[in-house]
C-alpha cells in the first residue's frame, strides 16, 4: 500500500517531459556539418550505434527516474499500513445521540459512557491536521456544538443525558453540511446512537429532507451497540386538576402511566409524589391508567418535586419532575352588569375557594362588562378583563376607553355567517366544542406583542392578553358572555374557563408553563441573574434572555435576593418508546448510494475502522538510497560518454 502526503505535487512528475524534450530538441537542433568522409563515419556509427543507443537509453532512463524520484519524494510517499494516527488530514464529524434512551445500560455501563469512550478514541487518533466537530442529535437545529478537538474533548467531559427529543436525521444533515465545506480533507462521520426508531424518524424535524451533497465520498461509521429491547414503562406529566394552585386548597394531581412495547405488566405500579426528600403522597395504578393523587394544601410559593413509579425498563423515564406555583385566591370585582350566568359561576368559584369577590377598590382583577373606568384600573396596576357588550352600538365607546387606556386593540363588529368555534388545543378542556354565535373582530391598532391565548379555528384571536408598561395585564374577549352570544355561559366549561381567566391568565406576574421539554426555550424574568441547576449548582444567566435547559430536573431562577421563578424539565414522552429502528430506516437517512457506511460495535473494530484513509510511514530512506544509486549510475554513464583526454601526440 502506498500513499502520499502531498499528492498534488505529483504534477511535478510532468517534469519528466523536460529531459525527453531536451533529448529530442538537441537531436533536432544539432549543427549540420559538411563532412566528405561520411562513409567512415557511417562505418563507425554502425559499429558504435548499438552501444550508443543503449547508453542513451540508460542515460535518459536514469534522468527520468531521478526526476520521477524527486517528484515522488516531494509528494511525500508513505509505504505500508501505518498506525492509527497515520491518516490523511481528515474532517471528522461526531454525531452524538445523548437523548434519554442513551441512559440504558449495556452490562454495567451506560450507552452514553460508551459513546464518550469511543469518541475519546477518535480524539486520541486525531492529529493536528484533522478538524473535529461535534453535532448533537438533541440540538439538531444548531450547527456544530463543539468545534475543534479541545472543545469536543471538553464537551465529552461534561456530557449529560439530555431530556430532549433526538433528531438523528437533523444532526446528520448538519454534520454533512459541515463536511461538505471541508473539501481539502478526507471526510468521516462517526454516529453514536442506539438506533431508537423515534430518533430515526424525521418527524422530529419535519418532513424528510434530502441530505446535502457532500461532494466526494463520505465514510460513515455508526456505533450502535446491540441493546436488549423490552417493554418500557414511563410516568407521564403530573398535572394538578386546576392551576394555579391556591393557597390552602387541597388539589387532585393526575399522573398517567404509559407503557411502550408488548407485554404490558398485569399488576399495578406504586406511584409516589416526592417533595423535597419526602414522599408526601402515594398511590397505585396500572399502566395505561391514570393515578390520582391528593396533594395536600400548600403554602404560597413554588412547589417542586417529582412523581415516581416503580422501575420498568428505562429508569430515567420512571420519574417526572414538576413545578407548580401556589398563589392566594385572586380578589375579583365585576364592573357593570355581570348577568346571571357569570354571577353564578363567580359564586361557585368563590364557594370553592378559588377566588374572592370584593369591592373594586380592593380587587386585583376587574371583570369589566361595561366600558367604564378601564384606564383607571390599569393605571392602578390591576388586571382588567374586558367582556364586550352584547349590543354593537356600545363598541365605539368601548374602543374609545381602550384608546384612552393605551390598549392597542379595537373591537369591530362584522357580519358573520354561521357559528364559530375555538381552535383545538385550548387550555380549558371542552372549549373547542362550544358554538360562538356573536364574535367581534379584535383588530390591533398599532404594533403589539400581545398574546392570543385563545383563537378561533380560523386563527382569528378570541382572547388576547397583554400588559401595560406598568405591568398591568389586560384580557380582551371577542364574545359577550351571554347565552345569546355563545354556548359558553350555559355550559359546564364556564366555571373552569372563568377560573383560568381570573385565577391564571389575568394574574399580574403570570408565569405561564412551568414544565418544559429539554432544550425548549424558556424566557427568564428580567431580574434573573442565575439559574440553579438540578444538582444544586448555579449558573449565571441573563435576565430577559432565552434559556435552554437540557438535563431533566427542577430548576430555580434567582435574582440577588432569592427565587423568582422555577421550572421543571422532562424528556418528551415519545423518548420512552425504545423500539429499535430498522436498517432500512437508517439507510434512508444515510444515502447509501453516495455515502459508504458501516456499523461497528466492538472496541477493536472501532479502533481499526475509524480514520479509513490510513497511510504508511514516510519512505524517505529507500528513496535516498535509490536516488544515490541512480545519481551515481547517471554520472558514470555520462562520464563514459565524454571524450577521453587524448594522450599527447608524439
Amino acid at each position, binding site marked *: 500500500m502506498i500513499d502520499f502526503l502531498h499528492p498534488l505535487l505529483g504534477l511535478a512528475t510532468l517534469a519528466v517531459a523536460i529531459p525527453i524534450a531536451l533529448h529530442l530538441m538537441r537531436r533536432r537542433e544539432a549543427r549540420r556539418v559538411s563532412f*566528405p568522409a561520411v562513409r567512415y563515419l557511417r562505418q*563507425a556509427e554502425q559499429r558504435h550505434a548499438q552501444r550508443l543507443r543503449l547508453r542513451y537509453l540508460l542515460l535518459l532512463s536514469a534522468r527520468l527516474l531521478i526526476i520521477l524520484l524527486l517528484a515522488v519524494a516531494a509528494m511525500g510517499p508513505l509505504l505500508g499500513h501505518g498506525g492509527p494516527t497515520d491518516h490523511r488530514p481528515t474532517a471528522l464529524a461526531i454525531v452524538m445521540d445523548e437523548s434519554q434512551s442513551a441512559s440504558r445500560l449495556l452490562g454495567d455501563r451506560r450507552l452514553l459512557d460508551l459513546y464518550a469512550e469511543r469518541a475519546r478514541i477518535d480524539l486520541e487518533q486525531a492529529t493536528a491536521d484533522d478538524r473535529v466537530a461535534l453535532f448533537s442529535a438533541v440540538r439538531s437545529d444548531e450547527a456544530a456544538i463543539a468545534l475543534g478537538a479541545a472543545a469536543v474533548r471538553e464537551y465529552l467531559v461534561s456530557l449529560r443525558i439530555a431530556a430532549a427529543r433526538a433528531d438523528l436525521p437533523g444532526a446528520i444533515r448538519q454534520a454533512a453540511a459541515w463536511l461538505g465545506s471541508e473539501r481539502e480533507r478526507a471526510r468521516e462521520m462517526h454516529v453514536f446512537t442506539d438506533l431508537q426508531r423515534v430518533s430515526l424518524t424525521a418527524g422530529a424535524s419535519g418532513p424528510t429532507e434530502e441530505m446535502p451533497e457532500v461532494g466526494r465520498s463520505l465514510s460513515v461509521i455508526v456505533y450502535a451497540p446491540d441493546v436488549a429491547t423490552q417493554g418500557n414503562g414511563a410516568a407521564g406529566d403530573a398535572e394538578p386538576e386546576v392551576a394555579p394552585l391556591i393557597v390552602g386548597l387541597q388539589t387532585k394531581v393526575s399522573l398517567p402511566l404509559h407503557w411502550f412495547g408488548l407485554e404490558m405488566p398485569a399488576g399495578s405500579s406504586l406511584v409516589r409524589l416526592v417533595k423535597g426528600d419526602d414522599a408526601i403522597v402515594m398511590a397505585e395504578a396500572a399502566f395505561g391508567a391514570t393515578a390520582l393523587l391528593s396533594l395536600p394544601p400548600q403554602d404560597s410559593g413554588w412547589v417542586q418535586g417529582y412523581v415516581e413509579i416503580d422501575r420498568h425498563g428505562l429508569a430515567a423515564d420512571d420519574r417526572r419532575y414538576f413545578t407548580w406555583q401556589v398563589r392566594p385566591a385572586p380578589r375579583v370585582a365585576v364592573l357593570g352588569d355581570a348577568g346571571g350566568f357569570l354571577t353564578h359561576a363567580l359564586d361557585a368559584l368563590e364557594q370553592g375557594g378559588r377566588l374572592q369577590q370584593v369591592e373594586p377598590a380592593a380587587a386585583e382583577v376587574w371583570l369589566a362588562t361595561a366600558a367604564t373606568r378601564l384606564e383607571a384600573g390599569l393605571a392602578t396596576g390591576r388586571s382588567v378583563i374586558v367582556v364586550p357588550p352584547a349590543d354593537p352600538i356600545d363598541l365605539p365607546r368601548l374602543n374609545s376607553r381602550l384608546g384612552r387606556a393605551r390598549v392597542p386593540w379595537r373591537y369591530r363588529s362584522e357580519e358573520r355567517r354561521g357559528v364559530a368555534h375555538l381552535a383545538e388545543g385550548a387550555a380549558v378542556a371542552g372549549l373547542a366544542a362550544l358554538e360562538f354565535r356573536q364574535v367581534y373582530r379584535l383588530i390591533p391598532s398599532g404594533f403589539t406583542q400581545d398574546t392570543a391565548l385563545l383563537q378561533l379555528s380560523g386563527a382569528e384571536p378570541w382572547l388576547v392578553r397583554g400588559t401595560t408598561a406598568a405591568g398591568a395585564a389586560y384580557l380582551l374577549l371577542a364574545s359577550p358572555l351571554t347565552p345569546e352570544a355563545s354556548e359558553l355561559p350555559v355550559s359546564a366549561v364556564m366555571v373552569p374557563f372563568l377560573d383560568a381567566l381570573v385565577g391564571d391568565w389575568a394574574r399580574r406576574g403570570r408565569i405561564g408553563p412551568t414544565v418544559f421539554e429539554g432544550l425548549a426555550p424558556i424566557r427568564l424574568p428580567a431580574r434573573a441573574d442565575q439559574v440553579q441547576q438540578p444538582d444544586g449548582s448555579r449558573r449565571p444567566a441573563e435576565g430577559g434572555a432565552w434559556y435552554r435547559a437540557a438535563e431533566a430536573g427542577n430548576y430555580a431562577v434567582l435574582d440577588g435576593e432569592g427565587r423568582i421563578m422555577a421550572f421543571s424539565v422532562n424528556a418528551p414522552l415519545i423518548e420512552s418508546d425504545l423500539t429499535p429502528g430498522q436498517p432500512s430506516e437508517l439507510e434512508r437517512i444515510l444515502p447509501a448510494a453516495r455515502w459508504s457506511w458501516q456499523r461497528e460495535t466492538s472496541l477493536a473494530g472501532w479502533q481499526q475502522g475509524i480514520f479509513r484513509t490510513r497511510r504508511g510511514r514516510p519512505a524517505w530512506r529507500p528513496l535516498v538510497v535509490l536516488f544515490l544509486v541512480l545519481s551515481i549510475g547517471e554520472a558514470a554513464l555520462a562520464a563514459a560518454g565524454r571524450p577521453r583526454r587524448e594522450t599527447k601526440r608524439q
Partner: protein
Amino acid sequence: MKSERHKRPDLLDPAELDDLGGLELIARAVVQGFVAGLHSSPSRGFSAEFAEHRAYRPGDDLRFVDWRMYGRSDRFFLKQYEEETNLAAHICLDVSRSMDWRSRADGLLTKLEYGKRLAASLTLLLIRQGDLASLICFAERVMSRLPLRGTIAHWAQIVRQLAAQAPGHLSTAGQTLEELTRAAPRPGMVVLISDLLVDEARTRRALNQLRHQGHEPLVFHILDPGELELSGSGDAVFVDPETGDEVAARSADLRAEYRAAVARSLDAWRRACGSRSIDYHTIATDQPLALALGECLHTRSRLA
C-alpha cells in the same frame, strides 16, 4: 635546417605559399626549391646521359651517329642514351565536391587546392625533365582534359586550366581511369590525385588494368587532417557534400571507431595497391609538397 626550410617553398606548409602569388608562381617556386634541394641533377638519367652504342639500322636518325667511332672503326654506331623517348605522364586530378573541403578555414588548403598545386608542380617537374604531361580533371565525368605535351607553354596551359577548374559533383575515378586505359595505350605514368572517396572497387579495378597495360600508376591519397581525426565533441549532423548522406553523431562518441574506420580504409588501399606494385601515398594537406614530388620522382626513376 630551419633556414633551408625557409628558403625552399617545397618544404613549406602549402598554405603558407599563398603569398607567392598565383598557382603558376607557386608551382614554379615549389619545383625550383625541390630541384635545388636535390644533390644531383634530376636530368642525370635523361636524354643527356649516354648509355651504350648500337649498330646503325637504316632509318635511324643520323644526328645520333657517333662519328668518332666511325673514324676509329669505320662502322656506324649510334649513341644510345638512357632515355631515348620522353615519358608520358597522365595527371588525373579529382575535382569532385568532396575535394573542395577543408576542416578549418585558417592555415589549411582544401584538398582540391592542394591537389591543384601538386598537379601543377608535378607537371612542371616532369616537363622540365623532358617528359610529356597531360591533365585530366574529373568529377562525375571528365571535366577537362589537356593532351600530352612537353613544353613550358603546355604547362602554362595546364596551370590555367587548373586555376579555372571549378569543383564538380560526384567522383568517378574508376570510370576516368578506365577511359584513360582505352585512350592511352602507350605505357606511362598515371598519377591519380584524389581523396579516394570514390567507388573503391571500380577504382581499384581500373588501377589494376592500367598496371596490367604497363602503366605505372601513382596514387596520391589526399587527406585533410580533419578527416584523419574526428574533431569536436558535441552532437552534429554530418552531411556528405556529394551524396547528401547524413549521419547524426556525437564526435566524442565516435572518435575511436572513426579513427579505426579510416585506418582500415587506408590499409585496404595500401594493401590493394601494394599487391599490384602500385605506388600509393597518403598526403595530408598540411604536408609540404616536396614529399609528393619526391615520391613522384622516385616512381619516375623506376620507370626510367
